């Protein structure tokens, strides 16, 4: 379990990083927290020739709360955000979801953007990103562009980020302070990749439900306000729509049932804390 041969560069600016990446982008990988990347290197699942470490680019290590939302640089760690002053007010969803991400010892190094870039189908941060329909800023040598969450993750471990692009930052729009927010997930052990995660935004006129674990990426569905038994029907239909992918750990049927049960539980929790 040792990484294969590779070269390592550690640019000081984003432009330099984009330049370095452009040299041989097909054989290069951006290294941020490395909590997934180095695991894959150790297992020799990937053989990049060059790692471009963005940790020394000072500009990427900032968290900015703007009028519209929360702008998080590419090298901000999950724990840094979790400890960000008043995160519970600025972004209650992230505040509730982040403790579910890995463990303390991986959050101290794993980054917010790295998790979105890795696009594991069961990850919590991509779910929040999709649920809030945030935006991601991608930088290449010649251009900068923004991609919205619903167009970013294209499937399991795959995104719209091109091989010559670096994630510069991610933007999570604010929500009204009156909305109800809840996050739940189920895994065999706390801290594992989840079998199913559910995040809910309960608004005045709608309920937005985000789910991971059913398909190859987060699934976002918006319901109107429904009565309790209608919510059960709605979740049942949703479970059938998404179907779920069965594997040796759990059947698709089991995942559908989790969705029905945990979905209901989470919507209930979100409803309780909404203030309309």
């Amino acid at each position: 379990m040792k990484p294969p041969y590779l070269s390592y560069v550690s640019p000081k600016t984003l432009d330099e990083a984009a330049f370095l990446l452009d040299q041989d982008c097909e054989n290069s990988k951006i290294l941020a927290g490395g909590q997934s990347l180095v695991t894959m290197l150790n297992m020799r699942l990937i053989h990049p020739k060059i790692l471009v470490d963005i940790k020394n680019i000072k500009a990427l290590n900032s968290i900015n709360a703007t009028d519209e939302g929360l702008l998080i640089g590419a090298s901000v760690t999950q724990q840094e955000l979790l400890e960000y002053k008043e995160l519970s007010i600025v972004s209650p969803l992230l505040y509730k979801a982040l403790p579910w991400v890995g463990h303390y010892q991986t959050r101290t190094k794993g980054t917010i953007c790295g998790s979105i870039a890795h696009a594991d189908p069961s990850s919590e941060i991509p779910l929040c990103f999709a649920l809030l329909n945030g935006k991601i800023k991608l930088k290449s040598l010649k251009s900068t562009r923004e991609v919205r969450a619903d167009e970013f993750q294209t499937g399991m471990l795959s995104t719209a980020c091109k091989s010559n692009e670096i994630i510069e930052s991610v933007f999570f729009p604010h929500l009204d302070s009156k909305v109800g927010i809840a996050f739940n997930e189920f895994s065999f052990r706390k801290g594992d990749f989840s079998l199913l995660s559910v995040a809910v935004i309960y608004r005045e006129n709608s309920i937005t439900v985000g789910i991971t674990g059913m398909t190859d990426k987060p699934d976002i569905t918006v319901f109107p306000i429904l009565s309790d038994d209608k919510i059960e029907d709605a979740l049942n239909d949703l479970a059938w729509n998404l179907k779920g992918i069965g594997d040796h750990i759990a059947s698709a049927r089991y995942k559908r049932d989790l969705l029905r049960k945990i979905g209901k539980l989470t919507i209930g929790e979100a409803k309780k804390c909404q203030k309309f």
Partner: protein
Amino acid sequence: MHASFVRSPYSHAKILKINISEALKLDGVEAVLTGEDVIKWSEPFVVGVKQPMEHWCLGVKKVRYVGEPVAIVIARDRYIAEDATELVNVEYDLLPPVMNIESSIKSNAPILHEKVKSNIVSERNFNYGNVEKAFSLANNIVEIDVEYPRNSCTPIECFNVISEYSDENKSYNVLSNFQGPMALHPVMAMALKIPGNKLRLRAPQNSGGSFGVKQAVFYYIVSISLASKKVGRPVKWVEDRLEHLIAATSATGRKSKISAAITKDGLLLGLKIIQYDDCGAYLRAPEPASLYRMHGNLSGAYSVKNISLKNYVVLTNKTPSGLNRGFGGPQLYFGLERLMHKISKVLNKPHLQIIKTNLLPQNSFPYKTPSGGILDSGNYQKAIQKAEKDGGLEELEKRRRGKRKVGKLYGIGFAAVVEPSISNMGYISTVLSHEERLKAGPKNGAYACATVSIDPLGSISVTIDSLPQGQGHQTVVQQLVASVFSIDPKNITVSSDLDTHKDGWSIAAGNYSSRFGGAVAGTVYLAAQKLFLKLKTIAAKNMNINVEDVIFQNDLVFSKNNPDNKITFSRLAGSSHWSPDTIPDAMAPPLRETLYWTMPQHKAPNEKDEINSSGSYGFIFDYCGVEIDQNTGKVIIDKYVTTHDAGTLLHPEIVNGQIQGAFAQAVGASLYEEFKYADNGEFLSGTFADYLVPTANEIPEACILHISTPSPFTPLGSKGVGEGNSMSTPVCIANAISDAIEQDKITLPMTPPKLWGLISKKEDLPKNLNLEITDEKKKISVELYQNYTNKKFWKYIKNKLRNIV
């Protein structure tokens, strides 16, 4: 040099060709060891049954499990060695794999070892008492089919081997975190085609856990030794986690069927047991010991007299099995105690009542079991009484009633288990017929060896042969010897490393079968006592008093009658070294005692196939309450009470640490851990994200209770205690789940989806109500919403933050 293994990605295949030329070209690569070298320089390992199976230290001509090594790259460092393993090109011809017991024993099953002509490599029948008569007299016959999964205690430190070949002496010098039993030393030497004294094996003082698992490193000691011979230099190999999970070892999987002949009160008249053990692709020593370690205590804690047993050893295309905490116990008791639970359900009587009806009576010890075990001591009734009272059983039953009243799934499980320790090394030969045993010569016993010596400054050194890997043997021995000599424990050092060229050892040496408390500590005690008497005699002569009048106290030695006639302990020790003429005549080498100890109760299996498979037998009575989360199927252990009788406790905190530790591993085995394979042979538990070891969040604290009926057979009256919960806890939890969901077919690990499969009702069909807001509407509504709210929200945030700053 550093080694890295090339391993088979297939579970069953012929090796057509191994091309190493690309690997050899890589800078830093020294050599690649393959089957050709192995055939030239070694022999297949000896096998415990008389069958023409060849188990070489690398896959030769064929591979039989995913992860089986086929070549070793030897390079300047591990990184380069791993680079080169990617360049070794092995061509395979795939064969159909056999992935479970059922398919392995079918007549048309693919055969793992062609020369054996069957995947059943051993089959034995045993009859004790008169089973047929018992069944004819029964009011009722209750049967249960159970399976126990393959799993492992996975120590956090993996295997390590450093071997150095000496061409001059044709010998190997090995340092490895091997845990014993040293009965495997001859197995390794024979495989290396050398006399025993050409294999110097050293095991270090500290090792990062084992739980039986590090027995299996012996397999790699041979191949890494050959690697050293190949390059003529020392070779080091550190097993990584992926290698460990895929190929180190596993507990046997077992499929059993037990039938009980019972009276209307649930008294057991007879048992018919059929067991199939899944030993994986090779019968690796000491297997099939899993199937026989419990032979003497087949009837558990119960007084049943008539037992028939059919044992089958089955091979499948999986990692060879080996030692793992509990070794045979979890498998046996899972059947027996599930059966007792089922009897209670069939008779509609409380489970605990069925247990009590069948328990061995209080004054029946030492008790000879039908299969030849001699249960040394116990008071099972007293232990159960203590558990009921101090553990709060009544309260728990009340809790169950309350939970059930509000519609929760809540169950209570019980398990009563006899915990054997100090293996009689002859039990493994029970797998052979009496005639075969006569031919091979009797095998029995379990010598423990300890040395106690005092140096000229009066500090004491103790050497033990138990190769501890975290159980605190050094601490216990230190305290024990300090109490014998009445000196400060700080003046005592304990060496628990082992060097086959310098230390006293026998085949039984090592860290297994919970032999420390009964055998090793006892042997240390006897050696210390012997040395103490010697020292007392020397002191008496020095001080010119009677031996009986010599008192040792707080590092001082003085006369009982005249405390002023005294000498310090260190002075006495020094004089014994410096002035031999002060030592009484005929007293050989003064201040060193090496003592070997074994038990007269350890006899070889007899013509009736009776075997006292262990030296001492403790008792455990467990019960627990579990609740099933009706949203997810997750089992929540609400309360767990475990009551032990391990004879004399040598160190209560260490004992409780062993119990909680075994309990945690057993919770893992019950709810999380399994070496899983797909039907096509693919291994599905290859990382710690797939093989789920419980964390601090999954393990409750067990309520631990003790009673003590000292063993009359061990020097200190103590018995083994470290493996008991590996045996009792899985079935106790299974019984509680069975009680909660009122179902019989409980298989482990009971993961949430598996349990959900047992309790879920018919799935609701979709109603297709189209309640969602469609995509277009959604986008608009979300965007509008965000624009609408953001400005207001930001004001709120700013105010909020201002207040804080």
